[in-house]
């Protein structure tokens, strides 16, 4: 029986047609997933009928028989009470200064402690969390708390917008399983995601959107096995799988970087302890582990971009100076690329200025013309045309900004680049293209790579070896294929099972 039906939904904002004839339905106890790349209109399709998106609506959206399109805000408000919303960012969707209990009580309209504890229990959280503040909870626990809040008033429809994108791979299926459980009570579930293979395991129907239009609609298994549309195929292919054939990686050469006994502590907590590893010329090493395992801290410590308490780093057998003593000739060797492309470029600088920055400081002898030439060559290498040189970060998409960040890292001809979750803030299609680009650079330049990631598929696509981190220690190292086939540590087993 149909719980929520959307037919021919259109949304116009100014002169832009954001949605055009979108139709889908959610059955009672069923789950429908809206899938598409960023900007395809999947979030809009979810929120617009409930008056939660700007623009002018047309078409029809019926929740339990009640038409939503055309209703004003006062009429929509009671109807929204029949729907629970789960948002993408569990880190920002909770108010930091209120306990979980008081936020849940507000959502439930009920202060009875036993009832609140039961709501948390239903979402897999102990009652003790009621008295804790959001910062004490991990990302996965926060998402569980948010789901508890979204379901507190027993809505008949649950709308979840990318509920797992901000989470570790290990937590994704656990959260989706939790959402699945609400279906057994006859609730409908509407899921928004860009990860088609991930959601396909949990939904009945998949609706693929592109540029505000439905391009494919069918049973989840059918869409995944026999995609009809090119974009659907791209979405499936872009999500890197562990069972794809092993890539051919360049042969590693002489030892390049070697770190021994690295230890980093923040106040009294030990973030990294006794970590040692080495990277050879042209070799790629993946530092994998769940969020908070200390992999970023370790990488920054050896790159001399973060604190490092004890331990030594050598480069081709020569000791690397401490952070404050790094000279241009040391900085030239190693360049970083960070996770959030928007935050890794100065908003006031043009692309050309950002890409030329390393040249200005690391090669002060270059003339301005030579600098501009090398910057243009670097932009060309990351497949960005000269038209981008004068743009500012606000005029770039996430993928373009990440390409600029890669060009900035490459322009000084480093022998090793540090990829700090370089693809995890990007949507799957874009991340796939960035991975292809990195693989090409790895082959072409014999670039050594230190890749920090929680995504094993990234490790598998680029890296010769992996080092697994858990709670600040390296618990397992070895050849990528061998480690993934037979994981020795609990941390890697968890990651493999999740991926």
């Amino acid at each position, binding site marked *: 029986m149909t719980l929520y039906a959307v037919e021919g939904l259109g949304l116009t904002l100014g002169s832009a047609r954001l949605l055009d004839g979108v139709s889908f339905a959610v059955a009672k106890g069923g789950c429908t997933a809206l899938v598409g790349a960023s900007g395809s209109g999947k979030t809009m399709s979810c929120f617009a009928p409930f008056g939660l998106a700007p623009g002018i609506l047309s078409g029809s959206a019926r929740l339990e028989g009640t038409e939503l399109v055309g209703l004003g805000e006062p009429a929509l408000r009671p109807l929204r009470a029949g729907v629970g919303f789960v948002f993408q960012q569990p880190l920002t969707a909770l108010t930091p200064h209120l306990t979980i209990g008081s936020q849940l009580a507000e959502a439930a309209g009920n202060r009875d402690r036993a009832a609140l504890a039961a709501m948390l229990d239903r979402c897999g959280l102990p009652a003790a969390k009621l008295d804790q503040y959001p910062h004490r909870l991990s990302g996965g626990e926060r998402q569980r708390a948010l789901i508890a809040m979204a379901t507190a008033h027993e809505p008949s429809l649950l709308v979840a917008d990318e509920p797992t994108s901000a989470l570790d791979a290990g937590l994704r299926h656990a959260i989706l399983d939790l959402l699945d459980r609400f279906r057994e009570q006859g609730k409908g579930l509407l899921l928004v995601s860009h990860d088609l293979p991930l959601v396909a395991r949990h939904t009945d129907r998949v609706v693929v959107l592109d540029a505000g239009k439905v391009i494919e609609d069918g049973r989840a298994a059918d869409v995944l096995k026999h995609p009809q549309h090119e974009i659907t195929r791209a979405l499936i292919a872009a999500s890197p799988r562990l069972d794809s054939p092993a890539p051919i990686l360049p042969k590693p050469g002489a030892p390049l970087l070697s770190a021994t006994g690295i230890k980093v502590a923040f106040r009294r907590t030990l973030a990294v302890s006794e970590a040692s590893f080495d990277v050879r010329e042209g070799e790629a090493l993946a530092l994998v582990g769940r969020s908070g395992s200390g992999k970023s801290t370790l990488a920054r410590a050896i790159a001399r971009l973060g604190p490092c308490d004890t331990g030594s780093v050598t480069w081709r057998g020569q000791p690397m100076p401490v952070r404050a003593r790094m000279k241009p000739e040391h900085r030239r060797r*190693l*360049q*970083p690329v*960070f996770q959030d492309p928007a935050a*890794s470029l100065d908003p006031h600088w043009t692309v050309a200025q*950002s890409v030329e920055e390393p040249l200005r*400081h690391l090669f002060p002898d270059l003339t301005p013309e030579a600098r501009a030439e090398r910057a243009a060559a670097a932009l060309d290498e990351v497949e960005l045309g000269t038209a981008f040189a004068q743009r500012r970060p606000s005029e770039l998409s996430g993928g373009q900004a990440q390409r600029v960040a890669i060009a900035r890292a490459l322009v000084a001809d480093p022998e090793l680049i540090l990829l700090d979750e370089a693809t995890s803030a990007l949507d799957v299609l874009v991340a796939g293209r960035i991975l292809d680009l990195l693989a090409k650079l790895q082959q072409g330049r014999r670039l050594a790579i230190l890749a920090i990631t929680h995504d094993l598929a990234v490790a598998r696509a680029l890296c010769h070896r992996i080092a697994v981190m858990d709670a600040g220690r390296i618990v397992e190292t070895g050849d990528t294929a061998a480690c993934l086939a037979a994981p020795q540590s609990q941390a890697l087993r968890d990651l493999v099972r999740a991926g």
Partner: protein
Amino acid sequence: MKMAAVLLAAIVVAALLLPPLLPWGYAAIDWDAVRTPAFSPGHVLGTDSVGRDLLARTLAGTRVTLAVATAAALVALVIGTAWGATAGWFGGRIDEFMMRIVDALYALPFMFVVIVLMVVFGRSVLLVFLGIGAVEWLTMARVVRGQVLALRNRPFILASEAAGAPARAILTGHILPNIASVAVAYLMLTVPQVVMVESFLSFLGLGVQEPLTSLGILVHDGADDMDIAPLTLIVPGFVLVATVVCLNRLGEGQRSRMAR
């Protein structure tokens, strides 16, 4: 917001351009027109108790007040930004030490400090500038430090460090341009504060010296004569209030634009 900008611009333009066009200077005494009412020939707003043209004096006072306020706010901007940026950038003990100095200065009754400075070094416009500016930088330093702390671990700052940029280049190339809009908003909120302080000092007789005048002195003199010549209080009072309100309005507008 727009109204505030227009009114403020009108006051500033009038104070800068109008005085040479008036028949009477701000210090000239018209012996034939002591305490004339408004709209008499030659004196549009009348004269004060010794026959000086009220319009000319108000415009001259506005000039002095705005000049003192702008200069003092700029002093505050320079000291505050340098201090806050240094503390925020180096962090740790240096930050701790520098910000405790700010806290200690906050605790001083700053009006008292300015008055003591005046008494010790004698009255001069320069001292008024410096005295006020040296006290007003405290808030600026705190604001700038907070901004620098928020920026300093952003990836683009780390990338700049990896690009071999020395601390000076990072501060001038990345940090300062990125805090400029916030600093400007606080600068615009500092100016009206300084206008008030300057007027208050002048009202107490510690500001600029006669025959040079400021809005505070005019309000003080006007208050003595308010029963017989209310305009001598109302005109400079109105200009003072309008300037402060407009500047506050613009500063708030700028700040909330950034908060978005």
